[in-house]
């Protein structure tokens, strides 16, 4: 008897006829790739994709931008930053606005480039805007280690680094399945995801190519219909169960957990990291004694709800009208990984 032909991942997704399911793309790059590759168009109506809090620029609160502007304008430091942060609105202005007022803002590719700039400009005090998740923190730690080795006294980090575990806990009920961010798992491993399965939270780790994303979604839909919590690593070429020991050791050695504010989610206890006491010479908040600054977002902006999957970008009143990539109101429209930017770029208002 001829064996029944196996279905492709695409066929499984297109022909899914199971119960309604909400899948959260935790990672902003997943949101963009799924749009770009046209995968949304394959989904039957009962499969809903919602965006999560996995874009570091988007979850960085307004107060952080205000702190950076205070450093640049009041203390005259040179701010080195990833490009996406420059146009994120602060309470009164963005870093781009501060630059118009004379602030020195430099866009760099990596923390290592910021450290190099500091070593080449000993007359300037340089602060790197350290944002990101478990993937980016090791790079920022390495830059501090290098600065110490080079004997630099003019380099420090303004940190808003975050860790994902507490965010998953906070978002537990927001989706049926998490599409876990592959590169965070490359660092952290998969232990936490397996633990979340025991708490009833399902998810798959996904890669970023068309085939990897289709496979992850197909596996998620098949497993979901079995009715039990599940976890599958669908990105095994990069993600190993134990993660990156070297990166974990480095961040454990240099940083400690602290409470951290997430745009939209508020302060989540122990969800951030800061440099340990022995590295405090490189902690800009201590070095410059930054006063407490409470940022205030534009009240019309619903980035906070978007980041929790409570609404779609197109549900926001200012989306696509007042808020567009040329004149963003919220962070999710600025960043290349932001959900609002994806909805705007790919014209999907559903």
């Amino acid at each position, binding site marked *: 008897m001829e064996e029944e032909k196996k279905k492709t991942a695409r066929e499984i997704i297109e022909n899914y006829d199971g119960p309604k399911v909400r899948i959260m793309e935790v990672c902003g790059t997943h949101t963009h790739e799924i749009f770009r590759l046209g995968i949304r168009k394959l989904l039957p109506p009962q499969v809903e994709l919602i965006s999560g809090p996995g874009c570091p620029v988007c979850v960085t609160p307004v107060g952080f931008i205000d702190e950076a502007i205070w450093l640049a304008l009041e203390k005259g430091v040179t701010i080195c930053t990833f490009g996406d942060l420059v146009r994120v609105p602060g309470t009164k202005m963005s870093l781009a606005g501060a630059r118009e007022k004379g602030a020195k803002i430099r866009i760099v590719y990596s923390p290592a480039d910021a450290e190099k700039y500091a070593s080449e400009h000993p007359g300037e005090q340089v602060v790197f805007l350290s944002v990101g998740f478990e993937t980016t923190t090791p790079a920022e730690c390495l830059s501090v280690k290098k600065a110490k080795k080079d004997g630099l006294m003019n380099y420090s980090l303004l940190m808003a680094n975050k860790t994902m575990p507490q965010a998953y806990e906070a978002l537990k009920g927001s989706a049926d399945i998490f599409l876990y961010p592959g590169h965070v798992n490359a660092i952290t491993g998969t232990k936490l995801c397996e633990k979340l399965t025991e708490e009833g939270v399902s998810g798959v780790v996904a890669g970023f190519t068309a085939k990897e994303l289709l496979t992850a979604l197909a596996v998620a839909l098949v497993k979901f219909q079995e009715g039990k919590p599940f976890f599958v690593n669908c990105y*095994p070429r990069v993600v190993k169960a134990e993660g990156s020991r*070297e990166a974990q050791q480095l961040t454990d050695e240099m940083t400690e957990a602290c409470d951290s504010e997430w745009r939209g989610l508020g302060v989540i206890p122990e969800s951030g990291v800061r440099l340990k006491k022995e590295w405090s010479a490189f902690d800009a908040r201590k070095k410059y004694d930054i006063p407490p600054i409470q940022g205030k977002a534009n009240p019309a902006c619903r980035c906070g709800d978007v980041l929790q999957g409570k609404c779609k970008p197109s549900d926001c009143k200012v989306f696509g009208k007042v808020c567009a990539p040329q004149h963003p109101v919220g962070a999710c429209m600025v960043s290349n990984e932001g959900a609002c930017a994806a909805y705007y770029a790919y014209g999907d208002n559903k």
Partner: protein
Amino acid sequence: MCVGLSAKVVKISDGTAVIDAGGAKREVSAQLLEDLEPGDYVMVHAGVAIAKITEEDDDETDQLMEDML
């Protein structure tokens, strides 16, 4: 800022790797990966090679589909 870039290692020296990503070459830190050699493929994030990868993912995703579905 958060995009991972897969790239081929061209040269290794002193904890630094020169990588080739689709023809564009740049220096990245190789301090988080042991035994990296020219010819290896890596995932680069914020100027640091964070994971070694296989050149082609097709075999692994095919195997996953075979196992799971």
